[in-house]
């Protein structure tokens, strides 16, 4: 009996112990030391980071698992996949929590191996976020500071909404105890480097700048960091000079590399440069080609024309012998069969413009007349007919009629007359020339190729009124002298007389020359 009682008591005690043990195990398994886990929501680098810390935790778990739900709905706890078995006491819930105005209830489980060390629950308001300041840089110039705030390349969101709905960006400028706040506007498109310039600053002054976020509808729960810079007076010029120097160095480097490459290629024969250039690329006489030299000057011989005024002999249809004898007396046959007559500038002007150079008709006469006239000083001073009618004609305008007179006191009414000399260029190939110093008897007129055209005026003077054929060595030119019939050579000063072409005055006794 005693043995049975002892056995039964032992069994009961053992069962009791077992039950206590099991109950303790059961209780401990369900009432894990939750502790109080402090949850903290942080906005760091534009990401929502949920972190937690457990109080009075002797054993540090190796990994954690998070569950969550919201108070506005009756949904059950939901595991956060991105925060399952994380080894760190924080987790990125940016893409998980998309409810802005919500109370989130979290359950954090800490494990060490497979054993759960703790299980804590807590709630946090979505607005209860600690906004860490963004990264920024400042660049100081003479009178301004460029603040560069670094935003992520992708549009940041808070609870699925653009950040401008939740927070504001502030830039604080502080100097010498004076604080200024700047609020640059940010929106959903603000990505990358966000630049903001603080201008109208005082040079040679130290400025401290801090950038921070402020919740839109809550009081400041912020952190801020500041960076300081001293605005030097020559800070901007230095930076610009550095830029210029670097630019120059870069350009020179590029040019040097380019030239070196060209030279190297030429030396190794990859580039062959021609030495003999085409003629068109020959620029040795480039200047000479552009500015050709002046053509050789023509041989010019000065011819001195001496005007001799002779009385105009008007044929009065008198066939008396006296007139004939006068003509005969006036004529002086030349050795070459030419009659020398006096020549005035008028005759020169009668040469048409068709001939480049004036053709001197009867220049021999001109040459000889002075010599003929000289021994006859009595006839009076030769007068030169007024050349004014002649000078109205076009072709004759080229020649300035300068009256040259052996008698300086004569009135030279030539328009271009300056004094009593007439100077003009004469084509020696078209005129008969004789040197002024040659004797009359030895005269040998320089005739190149002038054909002899002897026109007997006496025979038919009427036919000669409008044409004078002058043959030169190379060409023959028909001169129409009818417009100039009034510009006849007159030995007397009768400039106003204008006679018809049929009434031209002809010196009598002319042989070979038509004198008008």
């Amino acid at each position, binding site marked *: 009996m005693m043995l049975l009682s002892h056995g039964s008591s032992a069994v009961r005690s053992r069962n009791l112990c077992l039950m206590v043990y099991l109950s303790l195990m059961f209780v401990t398994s369900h009432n894990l030391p939750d502790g109080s886990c402090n949850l903290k929501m942080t906005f760091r680098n534009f990401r929502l980071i949920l972190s937690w810390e457990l109080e009075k935790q002797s054993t540090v778990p190796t990994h954690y698992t998070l569950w969550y*739900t919201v*108070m*506005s*709905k*009756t949904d059950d706890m939901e595991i956060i996949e991105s925060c399952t078995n994380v080894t760190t006491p924080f987790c990125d819930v940016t893409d998980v929590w998309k409810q802005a*105005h*919500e*109370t989130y*209830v*979290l359950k954090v489980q800490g494990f060490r191996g497979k054993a759960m060390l703790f299980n804590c*629950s*807590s*709630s946090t*308001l979505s*607005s209860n976020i600690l906004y860490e300041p963004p990264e920024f840089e400042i660049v100081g110039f003479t009178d301004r500071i460029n603040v560069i705030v670094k935003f992520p390349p992708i549009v940041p969101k808070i609870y699925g909404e653009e950040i401008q709905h939740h927070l504001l960006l502030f830039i604080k400028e502080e100097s010498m105890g004076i604080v200024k706040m700047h609020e640059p506007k940010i929106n959903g498109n603000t990505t990358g480097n966000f630049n903001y310039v603080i201008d109208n600053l005082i040079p040679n002054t130290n400025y401290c700048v801090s950038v921070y976020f402020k919740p*839109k*509808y*809550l*009081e400041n729960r912020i952190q801020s960091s500041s960076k300081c810079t001293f605005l030097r007076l020559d800070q901007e010029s230095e930076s610009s000079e550095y830029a210029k120097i670097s630019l120059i160095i870069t350009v020179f480097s590029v040019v040097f590399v380019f030239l070196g490459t060209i030279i190297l290629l030429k030396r190794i024969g990859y580039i062959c440069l021609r030495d003999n250039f085409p003629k068109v690329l020959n620029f040795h006489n480039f200047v000479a080609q552009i500015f050709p030299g002046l053509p050789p000057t023509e041989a010019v011989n000065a011819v001195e024309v001496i005007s001799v005024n002779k009385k105009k002999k008007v044929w009065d249809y008198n066939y008396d012998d006296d007139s004939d004898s006068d003509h005969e007396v006036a004529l002086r046959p030349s050795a070459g069969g030419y009659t020398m007559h006096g020549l005035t500038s008028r005759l020169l002007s009668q040469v048409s413009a068709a001939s480049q150079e004036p053709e001197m008709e009867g220049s021999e006469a001109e040459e000889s007349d002075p010599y003929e006239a000289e021994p006859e000083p009595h006839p009076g001073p030769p007068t030169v007919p007024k050349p004014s009618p002649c000078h109205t004609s076009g072709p004759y305008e080229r020649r300035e009629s300068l009256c040259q007179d052996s008698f300086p006191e004569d009135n030279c009414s030539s328009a271009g007359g300056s004094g009593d000399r007439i100077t003009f260029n004469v084509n020696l190939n078209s005129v008969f020339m004789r040197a002024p110093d040659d004797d009359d008897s030895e005269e040998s007129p320089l005739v190149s190729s002038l054909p002899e055209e002897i026109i007997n005026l006496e025979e038919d003077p009427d036919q000669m009124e409008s044409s004078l054929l002058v043959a030169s060595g190379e060409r023959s030119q028909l001169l129409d002298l009818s417009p100039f019939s009034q510009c006849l050579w007159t030995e007397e000063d009768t400039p106003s007389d204008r006679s018809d072409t049929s009434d031209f005055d002809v010196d009598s006794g002319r042989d070979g020359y038509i004198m008008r």
Partner: protein
Amino acid sequence: MNNRCILQLALLLCFSTTALSLSYNLLRLQQFNSSVECQKLLEQLNGRPADCLSDRMDFKIPKEIKHPQQFQKEHAAFVIYEMLKDIFHVFKKGYSNPDWNNTIVTDLLSELHQQMDLLNTTVVEKLGEENKRQAYSMIILRLKSYYVRIRMYLEAKLYSSCAWTVVRDELYWNFSFINRLTDKFQN
């Protein structure tokens, strides 16, 4: 005489417009401060939401309040006034929660009353009956139903601690919605 009267009326209209715009800006700032103060007071009231998950309820606040789109200043002010008035009526029964500090409840009710009075004198009384009828649109009716649901929930839960915790949490976010409506004063 007539010209003088017309001139006085014109000046009064101009100044009243300016005064009204200035008053809206001042009202906006005051409303922000009042909302922040009310939220602080609500946070001081005891209650752990994590312990009352079984007492949660979706009160279905109107979407126009949660995400306000287009609101005229006067209508936004009227909606805010109505919301404050209903919140006041809900927390008037807060003295029945033994876990709450009555001082905090008193401060909360006082803050709500001051803000309501300000809105009433600056905006609501100046609204004509026609404007009130326009303001009494579906939005106001749905808002009224929302607060009726809250009051009925409290009654059904017998004003328990968890029920008050859930209601406190719900009305905490009401002030965030009021802040978004207050932004319309800038229009």
